[in-house]
């Protein structure tokens, strides 16, 4: 399905179909933004607090800027974003596609010789692949800001010192690798959700199963792939 979908990418960018891609981009962003905001800020705050408290025992708390920024960009940013998007957007896609199968909409597309992969999968795939890195940048910014807040209020690390420290040690590579992960996770979520949706049988019960499987399979794949990508880039 993934391979078939990539063949259609040029088609998806023609005028008539572009609106559907934008539509999906919008849905993806809006659906997850609220949760992401809260989760990202608190992830940063927790990171800062935990590492900060440990570092303070050695008098090294001025380094939390680096600790939070690097961990957010490399790992927690893409990871947290992917989990939230899988749970909110992925499950919604599976439910929608599953419902389309059960209510004969996919059959109707087949009769009209409209390729369901091109028509349904592709806009969602593109939207998630594009939106995941964008959302991850947002998560990173909020996480780093949350860390700075905790640093300033609880660890006596001034905002300026936090930023200076982060800029000193965090590398561009950390950001890029994180964004690459986000991109891969986006593809994983879209493919899993659409696939589970398409193999739905047995009415409403089946749609429920498709949704649940999507979340579980996405979570596991994101975890394992996340580890493997880390292994490839950092050894």
């Amino acid at each position, binding site marked *: 399905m993934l391979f078939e979908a990539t063949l259609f990418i040029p088609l998806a960018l023609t005028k008539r179909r572009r609106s559907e891609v934008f539509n999906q981009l919008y849905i993806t962003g809006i659906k997850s933004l609220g949760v992401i905001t809260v989760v990202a800020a608190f992830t940063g705050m927790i990171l800062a607090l935990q590492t900060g408290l440990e570092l303070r025992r050695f008098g090294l708390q001025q380094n939390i800027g680096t600790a939070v920024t690097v961990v957010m960009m490399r790992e927690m940013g893409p990871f947290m974003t992917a989990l939230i998007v899988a749970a909110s957007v992925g499950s919604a896609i599976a439910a*929608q596609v599953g419902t*389309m199968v059960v209510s004969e*909409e996919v*059959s*109707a597309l*087949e*009769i009209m*010789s409209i390729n369901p992969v091109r028509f349904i999968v592709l806009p969602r795939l593109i939207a998630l692949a594009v939106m995941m890195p964008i959302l991850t940048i947002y998560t990173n910014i909020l996480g780093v800001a949350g860390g700075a807040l905790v640093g300033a209020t609880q660890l006596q690390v001034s905002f300026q010192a936090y930023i200076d420290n982060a800029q000193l040690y965090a590398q561009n590579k950390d950001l890029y690798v994180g964004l690459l992960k986000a991109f891969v996770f986006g593809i994983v979520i879209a493919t899993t959700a659409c696939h589970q949706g398409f193999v739905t049988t047995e009415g409403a019960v089946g749609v429920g199963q498709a949704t649940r499987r999507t979340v579980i399979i996405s979570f596991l794949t994101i975890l394992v792939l996340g580890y493997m990508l880390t292994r490839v880039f950092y050894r």
Partner: protein
Amino acid sequence: MIRFENVTKRLGRRNVLDGFDLEIKAGETFVICGPSGMGKSVTLKHMVRLLTPDSGHVWVGDDCVSEARGKELERIRARFGVLFQSGALLEWLTAGENVGLPLREHTDKGDEEIDTLAREKLRMVELEDAFDKHPSDLSGGMRKRVALARAIITEPEIVLYDEPTSGLDPVTSRTIDELIDNLRKQLGITSVVVTHDLHSALAIGNRIAMLNYGKAVEVSAPEEFMKSTNSVVRGFLEAQYITRRGAWEKGLKV
């Protein structure tokens, strides 16, 4: 036009079609009725290869649809318009966009031209007002009529209707009956109509088939159909208070 030759199809635990034979002629309105769950929808789905027979063949004209693939299957399917039992409209498109979809995907027509054609078809099913509404804002009967408009927008040779009037009020039902009848008279379209409503079956059908346990137990023109001695047919007629010829024409309950 459409021919089933000794088709057997097993679904779940039983043969839904079991050595099934049927011939539908070009230009006729052919009605399929039968008890619920007896394979009426399954029969329609075989005609457009949404289901493939376990054995036997399904022919559309000279094309064997049950063995076609790829481009050939696309070409055969393009001869059909299909109204699904559940309507099968795409939820994220408006009624107008749904109706125009086949043209938008397969022709070079401009957006305005497509909208005009879609509006015209929606007018035929008395739903012009619904043009900008989403399916979720329409009633079941309205969705079905939008789906009907979509099925005929490409002006196909053959239209399959799965229960076009179920869920509609009697007045709208007769409008749909007239629409189907007019498509045959004016454009010579071949129609296959699945329905439980024998009043409309007798009014629009050139021939009527009764399906029961995987076979067509009766295939005949309305006059003979009413005189049939088959017990399933009699049961259907009596359950709808059609006990003698002429009753349905005058709309009397006898």
